[in-house]
């Protein structure tokens, strides 16, 4: 029985990783065509990629966008999670629902809404609008991760600090925040990862000056297909895997499953 399960899972794993492995493999082809299996090994498309400014620019943009939105989302997420856990305001359930709504509401819907709305308020293609959208998209992950870490902490430590004479801000800064550090780092990396690979909303609303890496890849692929995109994808996979490994060490992946 167990053996059967293991066999099944091996097949399943193969199914799950096959396209990714194939793309990475494809990035080493020396020819312009996609032929599986590749006959020899070459770094030609990586060289091509690094001499291609547009991809590099997009990568920087994605990096910047990811860092800013992850930072903002972590900060907002911490404040919100703190308010929800310690304040238990009326309608806390509805508020949590709102903060995590971007998980349920289809990204296309939000993309359309942002496309139309940024035009309405005259911020179409503005970087801050893009940041705002990315913060909205990643906020659910930050709130959830930090909610878990705050709930795990309990209020006693803060009470202890306050009974020793600390004001709330001191208690939060000196006790709660340091103890949430692991959660903060996880939330940050998580948000970065999501923002870094977000394509749908960005495709709809980002102005011409802001083509993130995934959008650049999407545009590139709709226009031409050569192994350059396999190379850039392989690099993105590499970065993602590295981040995921860090996240895994931090035990943060468990927070997604709720």
């Amino acid at each position, binding site marked *: 029985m167990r053996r059967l399960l293991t066999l099944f899972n091996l097949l399943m794993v193969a199914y799950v990783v096959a396209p990714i492995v194939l793309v990475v493999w494809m990035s080493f082809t020396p020819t312009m065509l996609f032929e599986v299996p590749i006959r020899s090994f070459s770094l030609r498309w990586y060289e091509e990629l690094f001499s291609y400014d547009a991809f590099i620019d997009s990568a920087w943009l994605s990096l910047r966008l990811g860092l800013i939105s992850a930072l903002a989302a972590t900060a907002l997420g911490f404040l919100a999670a703190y308010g929800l856990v310690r304040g238990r305001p009326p309608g806390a359930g509805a508020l949590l629902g709102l903060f995590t709504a971007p998980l349920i509401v289809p990204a296309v819907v939000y993309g359309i809404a942002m496309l139309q709305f940024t035009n309405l308020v005259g911020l179409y293609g503005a970087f801050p609008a893009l940041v705002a959208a990315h913060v909205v998209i990643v906020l659910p992950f930050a709130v959830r991760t930090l909610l878990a870490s705050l709930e795990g902490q309990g209020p006693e430590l803060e009470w*202890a*600090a*306050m*009974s020793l*004479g600390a004001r709330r801000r*001191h208690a939060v800064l000196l*006790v709660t925040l340091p*103890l949430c550090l692991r959660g903060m780092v996880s939330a940050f990396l998580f948000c970065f990862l999501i923002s870094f690979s977000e394509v749908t909303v960005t495709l709809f609303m980002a102005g011409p000056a802001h083509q993130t890496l995934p959008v650049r890849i999407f545009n590139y692929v709709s226009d031409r297909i050569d192994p350059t995109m396999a190379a850039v994808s392989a690099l993105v996979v590499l970065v993602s895997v590295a981040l995921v490994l860090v996240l895994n060490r931090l035990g943060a992946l468990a927070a997604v499953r709720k």
Partner: protein
Amino acid sequence: MGGAPAGLEARSLVKRFGATTAVDGIDIAVRPGEFFTVLGPSGCGKTTFLRLVAGILAPDGGSIRIGAADLTQAPIWARNIGLVFQNYALFPHMTVAQNVGFGLAMRRVPRADRGPRIARALETVRLDGYGGRRPSELSGGQQQRVALARAIVIEPDLLLLDEPLSNLDARLREDMRSELADLKHRLGITTILVTHDIHEAFSLSDRVAVMRAGRVEQVGAPTELYELPANRFVAGFLGPVNEWTGRVGAIADGTAEVEFAGLRSCRVPALAGWRGGDEATVILRPERLGLTAASAAGEGAVVGRIDQVAHLGNLVNYRVAAGGRALLAQAPAGRTGRFALGDRVAVAWDDADLAPVAP
């Protein structure tokens, strides 16, 4: 700070959570320097009371005074209270010394003065030299003592202990209890202990308040409570008890003759309001019941058969079926005078040990 110890006066305290009233009009006055325990089963409102005093919760009614100051609306950080939590609530990211020094830092005690005070506090709880450790490197008992040091280093007006020993295993609890008893004498801080453990309460306290369902049932010194419980709840809560209900006969000079079906009649101090013919309840602690072999039954003894024996190490509990009742008796475990299940025994008692209780 650090002057003469202050007392606590809680007057008609009320705290509701939605529809339930957790604290229902409590009046408690703790004398300066006193070690006062609030005792009660879980859910009786004792922790809520403690949190009201600490300032973690705000009362829905009533007032709290510490010393001369009315602190009912004062924020927690302004109350100068030492608080020891059930789970210690040590800051896991700080060393022991940083934990203990936290309150001093918050009080802006100059850095130079903090060191000696931290050292002194750690010395008081016999943890000198542990300042550089992390809480996670300490045993439960040591963590407990750090929590204590952290609470007393700020020289609080009032020390609040929330079931401080309940997370320790039996032996450690015994040690900590005696240590607390020592500390109590050395520090002289007004202390309120909240617990459900009678031994803890009795071995440490000057006075104890027994709580039930948000109200104080009785306040008094431990022996007073044990010997003269105000009612059946207090009597039963403080330990196993024989509770007999009978009928009042003649009352003379404050002493009533009470008739118990199946037992002999007894002379009991009459409660105010008893009349001839009334139902009366008296209690008798098991250790006051004497057991002898049935053959050696004295006058007034009741003969019965042992139907349950429980050995507790230093004590033996017996249940005797006699006169249609189950009588509980406790005797020291000794080589002699042991009885076995089914033995016929005579049960005797002194009427002076009977305490009348209100229903």
